[in-house]
């Protein structure tokens, strides 16, 4: 059989965990091979082994039929293996061209010789319809363009085995479509692609075959055309999953959050533009209101103003009728507001603290956790174990595990556990499922719905249209700091939503 890459019986252990347990992965030449698995299933570890970042304890790697030893990324590169990392590795104040040749520069008498490189880059860009401007600086181009630069980096090095590590996580829907086309084109030119993802739609859209990993073990390889999404997700998670959100119609009650005339000005020097312009809306008990919009239209600032992370320049914010506009973050936290932050590493967790310490991050001062200023470790521990059980938070050493060493899904579960256990009146959830796998997304969605049914109001901010359409009871579309539409998800379509999000449509009276 004509396999371009074979990873046979690969085993990689870390202290306390077998990340890859006798995994076999065989890639045919000229195919898009999806690698599917939940967070922590061992996808990244396996790819790091292939890329020479880790040495496996067992098994062997064959490239084009020959057994090879890959000691570092340079070896991988020499074998024609290239990788687009989830977090791009680009120099921000260099131009596109400079980034592409970086580490592989031609020189003449010790001076840089860019002419040949420019020609090659332009030829590649044209051939694959990448349309990049070689002289633009990385910091000035969109994330989608930056990704194309990463792709060009691989092509420039004549790699023909391309690894894409969760490439769509950072892209808008349109950019995802374009990426899919680029991938198809690359394969038609004879390249082979390993596509790491946990998004089933994307696998169905482009992949030829799909290998599934679960908790470090190899589950199987299937032909994508003959397998439906349900079957794929069952292979990945190990049990039946619900791909649509199960919820009854909302029964909105009293207003819990009311925002009136909120304005946030840009604090950067020289900027006078308002980031949030005179925004007003309400969230009622028992409903999920979603702020939809393309990233960077003021969602972050809106949430920060509501939760107290920044000060509102004008307008008022009321929780259950009480004006909290001038109140501290602590006051809002302890008076019925919960906040699942956008960036769990920056805001949500103290990564060097243990799980139990993180679970009391906002309650450590409460009487039940402290005695005359001394933390009651036993009480904290007991509480943490309660939440760990209730929310099924998995970690290496239980409550005392450092948050840093937990998987992304379980970190997010820890934040959700902490925020929901406060029984909030209003839950502000910003991209609560970003970067998570199907199993975790299902869990988090069901928890949010449960919270709604218990009578909380939920303000959801999401960039994922699936999530917006499935989870919310009401959609507010934000465009350039203004709410341009108030929609019922049952009476609207993704296309219509897209028009509002892009600013080409606006509801009357707004």
């Amino acid at each position, binding site marked *: 059989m004509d396999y371009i890459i074979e990873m046979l019986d690969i085993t990689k252990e870390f202290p306390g965990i077998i990340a890859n347990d006798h995994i076999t992965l065989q890639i045919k030449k000229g195919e898009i091979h999806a690698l599917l698995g939940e967070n922590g299933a061992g996808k990244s570890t396996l790819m790091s082994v292939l890329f020479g970042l880790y040495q496996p304890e067992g098994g062997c790697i064959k490239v084009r039929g020959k057994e090879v030893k890959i000691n570092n990324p340079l070896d991988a590169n020499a074998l024609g293996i290239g990788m687009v990392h989830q977090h791009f590795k680009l120099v921000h104040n260099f131009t596109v061209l400079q980034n592409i040749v970086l580490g592989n520069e031609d020189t003449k008498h010790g001076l840089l010789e860019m002419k040949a490189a420019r020609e090659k880059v332009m030829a590649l860009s044209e051939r694959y319809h990448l349309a990049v401007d070689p002289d633009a600086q990385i910091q000035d181009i969109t994330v989608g363009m930056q990704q194309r630069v990463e792709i060009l980096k691989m092509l420039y090095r004549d790699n023909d085995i391309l690894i894409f590590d969760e490439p769509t996580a950072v892209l808008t829907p349109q950019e995802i479509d374009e990426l899919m086309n680029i991938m198809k084109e690359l394969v038609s030119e004879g390249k082979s692609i390993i596509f790491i993802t946990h998004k089933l739609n994307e696998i169905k859209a482009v992949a030829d075959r799909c290998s599934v990993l679960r908790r470090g073990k190899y589950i199987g390889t299937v032909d994508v055309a003959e397998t439906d999404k349900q079957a794929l997700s069952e292979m990945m998670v190990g049990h039946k999953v619900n791909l649509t959100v199960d919820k009854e119609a909302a029964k909105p009650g009293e207003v819990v959050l009311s925002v009136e005339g909120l304005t946030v000005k840009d604090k950067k020097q020289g900027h006078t533009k308002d980031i949030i312009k005179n925004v007003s809306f309400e969230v009622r008990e028992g409903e999920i209101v979603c702020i939809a919009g393309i990233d960077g239209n003021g969602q972050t600032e809106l949430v920060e103003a509501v939760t107290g992370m920044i000060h509102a320049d004008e307008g008022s914010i009321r929780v259950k009728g009480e004006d909290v506009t001038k109140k501290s973050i*602590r006051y809002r936290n302890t008076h019925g507001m919960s906040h699942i932050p956008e960036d769990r590493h920056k*805001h949500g967790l103290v990564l*060097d603290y243990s799980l139990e310490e993180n679970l009391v991050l*906002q309650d450590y001062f409460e009487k039940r956790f402290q005695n005359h200023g*001394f933390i009651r470790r036993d009480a904290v521990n007991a509480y943490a174990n309660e939440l760990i059980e209730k929310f099924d938070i998995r970690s290496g050493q239980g409550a005392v595990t450092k948050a840093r060493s937990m998987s992304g899904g379980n970190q997010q579960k820890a934040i959700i556990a902490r925020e929901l256990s406060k029984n909030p009146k209003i839950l502000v959830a910003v991209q609560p499922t970003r970067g998570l796998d199907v199993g975790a997304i299902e869990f988090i969605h069901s928890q949010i719905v449960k919270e709604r049914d218990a009578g909380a109001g939920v303000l959801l901010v999401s960039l994922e249209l699936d999530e917006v359409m499935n989870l919310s009871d009401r959609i507010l579309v934000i465009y350039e700091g203004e709410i341009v539409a108030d929609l019922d998800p049952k009476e609207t379509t993704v296309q219509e939503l897209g028009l509002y999000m892009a600013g080409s449509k606006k509801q009357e009276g707004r």
Partner: protein
Amino acid sequence: MKKKIDSIGFMSSLFAIIVGLLVGFVILLVSNPADAGAGFVTILTGPLTHGSKGVGQVFYYATPIILTGLSVGFAFKTGLFNIGASGQFIVGAFAAVVVGIKGEAFGSAQWVVALLAAVLAGAVWGAIPGLVKAYFNVNEVIACIMTNYIGMYLVNYLVSTNKDLYDKIHNYSKSVANTANIPKMGLDKVFEGSSVNGGFFIAVITAVVIFILLEKTTFGYELKAAGFNKDASKYAGMNEKRNIILSMAIAGALSGMAGALLYLAGSGKHIEIVDSLAAEGFTGISVALLGLSNPIGVLLAGIFIAYITAGGFYLQLLNFSTEIIDIIIAVIIYFSAFSLFVRVFITQLKKRREEKQEGGKK
């Protein structure tokens, strides 16, 4: 798990010490090959060869640098770099000396009042960089460096212009009253002839208190959270401005206490009117680094650095200069700054050994 990390930390500090001593030995060899061996033995054992007095001197030297080490280490733990220990130290010393000279009315409690005055003065001096950081977002390193110089010149000015404080002939502050000296607390009997006094006990107790504060209290939990992740501590509703100011004030109080314990030691120390920053403040940075900012680690590191410094004095008997000790300490600090690198190295070494053992079993 926690213990494992700590043992690796200890190993990396030990590694730094060994490398530092080896470099010192090389320097001894280069400067005087004939006596190098004897010199090296002197560094290692010097303080032990002079009976209980030598050991007592080690604890005496250790007392102030344990406290400045705690000061720097405490600030480190809360995400701040307190390079201002020197200024806080001298301001604290000044407050102690003023009460020590003028406060005879306090009688036998004079030393306690002097000590408290020093703690307060140090706290105020430390709080200044904290305040400007919290309210004007001025980097604490810059503010600390400035308060170092302001503190030094201010104290020089205040001492030299005040007849009651200034000893013109020697160009230093007058001696404090006997009742202002820290009681010996029995240490003079154990370590006869040395300058060690109850201040060492105070330093040890303070280290334990800081340890408890950081590890067991909600206040320490807040401060460390801010140190690890400022954004998350803000998100959790902790008052970051208050925490920065309090954290710097506590760090300053510790350095101020160091100043009092040195100048109230009854060992004939006076505030000299010279234009140089107090070295104890900078030694504190070394001590904190070597002790990995852990209060108990700082305690041990302070005693160790005092020990080899004392050993260095005896080097002079062999016609070596004491600067060699400074070089050794510098190398040790250099390598303990590599602690992360050393940690990785040690973990790898351990893993390899474990693998070997497993292989042997098969």
